[in-house]
């Protein structure tokens, strides 16, 4: 029987069995708990050979399923006889001292502890009962216990009663207003906002406040930050080069979606598969940036497919953590050690996510349409005006034009497009288009070969021409496929070889229309922060990368074209002896460099002309010129003349610049399903190693979970929808648990990222399930869930820790008091800025650069960022908008445990360190806040008394108590005695206030 059936068989039994004796409080019982005590032993010592992995099973015995464990193994003995340890072969073996017989086998050197043996013995004696794992069966909605009006309180207080603990009284109103502001919008209330709440004596004053906070645009900013920890959002690519990337539109999408209370199922489906929705909107596409937050290694010389593989393993891991609460990544190398996740499950799930290309999307918008129109008009205007700029006027122009036509006609040849009759590559997908151009897509490597076979009824062919042109489907518009490390959208043709009847054909000469172009923007010159002199020194001398270099037999040189819009170049390769193409022609194009550099959009033509050369004229114009039928009034020809001749260099520059820089929508990174003509296959990787791909695996969800609907396509969209299917036991639980943690500092399941066998059992299983079902019932509305939580008495309790708490429930697992924990880095910084009156309310846009010590970005990391400290409003934006540099993250954020964006994070560490004290005390930005705060209170009040109270209210919402006032006054007096006065004096007090434990702590 497959494990899936086993786990789903008796959903009803499970909660009974699992009546969570598991809470980590001393509720000892003699009965052995399978989930907590037995399964870990079996998992650690037995499942490797007697678990669900068919490949590694020994002795035809599996112990993970009760009916199998009660049967006979290969030896014929019965492994487990319930109630009879003495008859159970398993026990005999684990107690045996015989090296041939003992289990685990002597050779494994894995010794089963005596306590584990005793546990197994008791368990068998008690009937060898198995339990289903609570998280793998659907949530069961119990009616909340009676006696409390709020369901959360009903569950929590029932439990408290059992443990003889009583809930704490409600926090005072100032604490409450501060808490709910910090939780819902990530900012403390201003004194005025707090007073407004105090002044509202309506019975529903609190609910009104909650609703207004849920409606605040700052709500989305607060909750986006938590989501971005999971999404491993950053503004750079990571690894050595760690160059900037543009994906902030995704960050802004998250903020907007949360503010709009986009139901969590849609919120998720759009991020996982927005591109696959019917008629996806620009915003659906932007949402798919979720999985583009993986890192991109641009270090010279990496194997791009290896790092794409790592990006995929990252995506599987993130998906498992974020939606499933499963440590899927443990099954990358082998079947999961504890959870029922097979090695193949891992790669099948990868296959569900693995069929996407990773383009940069130019966001389309109504505004773009008008910008494009304006651009077209501008170009038409520039073109129309061009003749009027000709030096010397119309007559001179006509004469020179006619002369030019003569010269160019002499150079031009008749070219005929060759349609390949065969295209072969090592990996990239190259497809012929109707216009004879070939379009490349799919994965590329550091050494790609295109083999093209042609045939034409034509003798005396003297040369071939390769036209390369931009195309909107390519990185940076092409014409190349280079997407990392090298010049984006460029290509590098290392060698071109021709064969006829398997005989090598020799090229005698080559030319390209960009042979004279400065090609020094390459490789070493791209080294970040290279000094100009260094760039020059490192750069290869001019014209190394020209068409001749593609036929010189030297792999490290070649023909290169840089990427961009409206790029069009040609290269002409002349045969030593004219060919008869009726015998066929095979071209091998090799693209090889330390980065992947293949060609994306090109066309091959032939000529019989005598002196074929690369002119760079479009095919149409070249034909005109070659045919000698060109008329002086041909406007296209005239334009080409005006745009290229030396004397028009300055006059034509605006036109050429405009052509090169068409208006583009704001770029952002997205996922886009690959075309049906080129699906990507996914394989299982032996030991999880990139260099050991094995059998292809079909896309599927883990076998132990409910399966995708039979009729569903095996796509990302089907998978994303499956996460939210009613049968899925994990998603809703994992989601509500994470929300709970945000408010209480601890999840009902403390391991937010792991709901598997090794997870911490829920403290309030029925509440968890009730909330999970409630979330679904309320249409996955996050705002409703948050409202539900913050309106509970459990949430509103005071957080004072009493002696009784310390004794009975030091970690507040039972929630007899409010939660007190240090605030997140971003909230700490934003709180200080808000207290100082500096915080900007501006939303969205590119990352900003608030002040931080210079050495953070100038020293120590290879891929430097130019941290141009923002001025004006951007200096004081919410921390959500601080530019996230992965290898050198914003120092203050790191000090307060913010993630670097290098990996998905479900729960931040909450540390308490001297470096945090140094930051709050001495960091220039906090000093700046103290100065502004000092000015503010000086402006707001006159007497010491009033100023101190104003200071206190700005920082911690409540007024200072008399004994606090005594301390503050004493400080003032002492500083005055030390000759501090005026603003300086008040800055000193403000600095102290910004350092209070209370200002950085969830009250």
């Amino acid at each position, binding site marked *: 029987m497959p494990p899936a059936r086993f786990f789903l068989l008796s959903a009803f039994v499970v909660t009974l069995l699992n009546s969570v004796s598991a809470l980590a409080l001393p509720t000892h019982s003699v009965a052995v708990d399978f989930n907590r005590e037995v399964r870990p032993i079996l998992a650690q010592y037995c499942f490797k050979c007697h678990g669900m992995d068919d490949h590694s099973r020994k002795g035809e015995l599996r112990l993970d399923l009760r009916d199998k464990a009660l049967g006979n193994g290969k030896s014929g003995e019965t492994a487990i006889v319930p109630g009879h340890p003495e008859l159970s072969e398993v026990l005999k073996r684990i107690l045996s001292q015989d090296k041939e017989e003992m289990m685990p086998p002597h050779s494994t050197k894995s010794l089963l502890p005596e306590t584990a043996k005793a546990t197994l013995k008791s368990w068998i004696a008690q009937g060898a009962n198995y339990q289903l794992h609570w998280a793998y069966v659907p949530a069961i909605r119990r009616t909340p216990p009676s006696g409390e009006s709020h369901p959360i309180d009903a569950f929590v207080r029932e439990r408290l009663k059992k443990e003889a603990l009583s809930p704490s009284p409600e926090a005072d109103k100032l604490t409450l207003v501060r808490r709910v502001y910090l939780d819902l919008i990530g900012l403390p209330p201003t004194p005025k906002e707090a007073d407004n709440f105090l002044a509202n004596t309506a019975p529903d004053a609190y609910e009104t406040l909650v609703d207004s906070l849920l409606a605040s645009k700052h709500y989305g900013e607060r909750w986006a930050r938590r989501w971005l920890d999971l999404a491993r959002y950053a503004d750079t690519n990571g690894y050595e080069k760690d160059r900037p990337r543009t994906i902030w539109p995704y960050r802004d999408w998250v903020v907007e979606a949360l503010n709009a209370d986009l139901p969590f199922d849609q919120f998720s489906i759009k991020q996982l598969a927005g591109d696959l929705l019917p008629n996806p909107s620009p915003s659906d596409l932007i949402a798919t940036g979720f999985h583009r937050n993986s890192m991109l290694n641009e270090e010279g010389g990496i194997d791009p497919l290896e790092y794409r593989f790592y990006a995929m393993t990252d995506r599987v891991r993130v998906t498992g953590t974020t939606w499933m609460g499963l440590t899927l990544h443990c099954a990358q190398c082998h079947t999961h050690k504890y959870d029922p996740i097979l090695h193949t499950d891992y790669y099948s799930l990868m296959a569900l996510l693995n069929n996407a290309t990773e383009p940069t999307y130019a966001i389309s918008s109504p505004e773009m349409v008008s910008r494009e129109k304006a651009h077209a008009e501008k170009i038409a205007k520039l073109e129309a005006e061009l003749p009027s700029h000709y030096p010397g006027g119309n007559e001179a122009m006509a004469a020179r034009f006619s002369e030019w036509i003569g010269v160019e006609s002499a150079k031009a040849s008749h070219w005929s497009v060759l349609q390949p009759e065969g295209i072969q590559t090592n990996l990239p997908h190259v497809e012929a288009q109707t216009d004879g151009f070939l379009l490349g897509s799919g994965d590329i490597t550091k050494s790609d070969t295109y083999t093209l076979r042609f045939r034409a009824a034509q003798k005396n062919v003297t040369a071939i021409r390769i036209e390369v042109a931009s195309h909107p489907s390519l990185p940076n518009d092409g014409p190349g496929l280079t997407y990392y490390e090298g010049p984006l959208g460029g290509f590098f043709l290392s060698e071109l070889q021709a064969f006829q009847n398997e005989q090598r054909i020799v090229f005698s000469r080559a030319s390209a229309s960009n042979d004279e172009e400065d090609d020094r923007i390459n490789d070493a010159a791209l080294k970040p922060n290279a000094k100009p002199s260094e760039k020059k020194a490192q*750069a290869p001398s001019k014209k190394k990368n020209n068409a001749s270099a593609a036929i010189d037999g030297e792999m490290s040189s070649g023909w290169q074209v840089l990427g961009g819009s409206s790029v069009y170049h040609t290269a002409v390769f002349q045969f030593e002896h004219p060919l008869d193409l009726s015998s066929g022609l095979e071209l091998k194009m090799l693209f090889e460099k330390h980065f992947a550099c293949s060609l994306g959009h090109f066309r091959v033509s032939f000529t019989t002309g005598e002196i074929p050369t690369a002119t760079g004229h479009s095919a149409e114009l070249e034909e005109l010129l070659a045919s000698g039928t060109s008329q002086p009034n041909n406007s296209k020809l005239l334009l080409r003349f005006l745009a290229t001749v030396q004397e028009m260099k300055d006059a034509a520059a605006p036109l050429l610049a405009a052509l090169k820089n068409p208006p583009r929508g704001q770029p952002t990174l997205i996922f886009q399903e690959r075309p049906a003509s080129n699906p990507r296959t996914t394989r299982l990787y032996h030991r999880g190693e990139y260099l050991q791909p094995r059998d292809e695996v079909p896309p599927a969800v883990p076998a132990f979970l409910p399966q995708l609907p039979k009729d569903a396509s095996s796509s990302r969209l089907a998978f994303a929808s499956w996460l939210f299917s009613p049968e899925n036991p994990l998603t809703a639980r994992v989601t509500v648990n994470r929300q709970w943690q945000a408010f209480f500092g601890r999840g009902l399941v403390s391991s937010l990222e792991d709901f598997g066998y090794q997870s911490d059992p829920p403290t309030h299983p029925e509440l968890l399930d009730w909330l999970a079902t409630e979330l679904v019932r309320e249409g996955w509305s996050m705002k409703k869930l948050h409202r539900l939580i913050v309106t509970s008495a459990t949430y509103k309790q005071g957080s004072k820790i009493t002696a009784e708490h310390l004794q009975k429930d030091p970690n507040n697992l039972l929630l007899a008091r409010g939660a007190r924990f240090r605030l997140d880095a971003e909230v700490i910084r934003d709180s200080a800025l808000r207290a100082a009156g500096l915080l900007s309310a501006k939303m969205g846009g590119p990352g900003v650069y608030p002040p931080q*010590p210079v050495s953070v970005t100038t020293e120590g990391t290879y891929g430097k960022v130019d941290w141009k400290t923002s001025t004006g409003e951007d200096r004081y934006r919410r921390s959500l908008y601080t530019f996230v540099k992965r290898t050198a993250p914003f120092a203050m954020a790191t000090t307060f445990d913010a993630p670097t964006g290098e990996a998905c994070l479900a729960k931040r560490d909450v540390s308490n360190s001297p470096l945090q*004290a140094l930051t709050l005390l001495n960091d220039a930005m906090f000093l700046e806040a103290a100065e502004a705060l000092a000015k503010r209170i000086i402006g707001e009040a006159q007497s010491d008394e009033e100023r101190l109270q104003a200071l206190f209210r700005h920082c911690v919402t409540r007024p200072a108590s008399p004994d606090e006032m005594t301390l503050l006054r004493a400080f003032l007096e002492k500083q005055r005695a030390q000759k501090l006065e005026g603003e300086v004096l008040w800055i000193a007090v403000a600095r*102290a206030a910004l350092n209070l434990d209370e200002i950085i*702590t969830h009250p």
Partner: protein
Amino acid sequence: MITPNITRRHFFQDCGIGVGKVALASLLAQQTARAAGASEKIASSGTLFAPHHEPKAKAVIHLFMAGAPSQLELFDYKPMLAKYEGKPLPASVIGGQRYAFIRSDAAVLGPRFAFGKHGQCGAELSEMLPHLATVVDEIAIVKSCRTTQFNHAPAQIFMNTGFSQPGRPSMGSWITYGLGSEARDLPAFVVMSTGSGISGGAACWSSGFLPSLYSGTRFRNTGDPILNVSTPQGVDPRTQRDTIGLINAMNQRRLQLEGDSEIATRIANYEMAYRLQSSAPELMDLSQESPATLELYGCDPATPSFARACLLARRMVERGVRFINIYNEGWDAHSDVAGNVKKNTALTDRATAALIRDLKQRGMLENTLVVWGGEFGRTPMVEASVSLGRSQGRDHHPQAFTMWMAGGGIRGGTTYGATDEMGFNVVEDEVHVADLQATILHCLGIDHEQLTFRSAGLDFKLTGVEPCKVIKALLA
């Protein structure tokens, strides 16, 4: 096994009722704990109540030669390369190895420098290492190192964390997690960069899934050595003292009301921060060093350099710092390997030897482990490229490279392992990165199999899941 996500709160409770193992270590933990009145026994240790075995080393100085120095120009003399210079290696030798820049049929390049035998041990060293030659009897050279990574960032992260992708704890984090700190007023795990920048970035000294207080603390070359360790300009030192006094008095009052031991920890941390404000400048003040010492290292006290970092490292060890990373970036010799080695040995050889000599003369070498090496080796084949303007360079080579160790627990004058006559593959006593890590932990009294941390349901260790071994032959 250790419970994850240990908080300070946990610590206070546990020591209150005298329960079991507590992970509290690293950054200034000792002082914090003392301030809060914790028992000395727990406070001075990390996760481990006692080392797994008798430690030889108390501290580690890892001289990380980032970019990967050429073993063929420094330690692993291969005259055969000269003989076959200009000819490619047989494909059977190359196997399926992928390279960063070169093609696998590139010709071999002979050693660029002369070698000679040195010390009583007679170890073979390049003429580019004249200073190291004078202390060669103190070091154990391992010529048979091997890694799995052939690009800088992943290889550096791998050398530090045992995994090629960011996210795992670094060696310094594991060690301070295990052993805690002996530094009175300084961080337990310090990182210094003396070159153009570290490819692996902050992932190289990250605490990964360990609590974040085990992260390495960067000592910087410009501005404050520890970020924000200076009182802001314009703030009177007395005011600074009074400010901290006020903060702590206010927090003390809050502690009485709330009963939250986190506040007690915060109070202790402000005291510690204040002490750091004087201990950091004291550490950096090299005027206390004799001219002879400065001369020995070749150190200009005013200028950040590898030499100054080495001298600072000695001073840190004296003050109880547990793990020090000094990065010297710049060994990535894709072109002109001879010039690269010349330049970098000029920057490092004298100070490296001085560090060994200085530790020795102060009686500190026997309990300070010094580790020298890069993230991989360099190819016996030449790197040259027309389009990149490169010639006479060497590409990345993960199959074989050289590292050395000295001091605490290491048998000096040892040469261990060997490569084939072309220096391509290890042919004797292969030492994988995990073996190096296991050996380093061993010198500190830690069994690498037993220093574990549970994250996402799995027990992780620095050395990973593949079998590895302590290299006994290197031990004193």
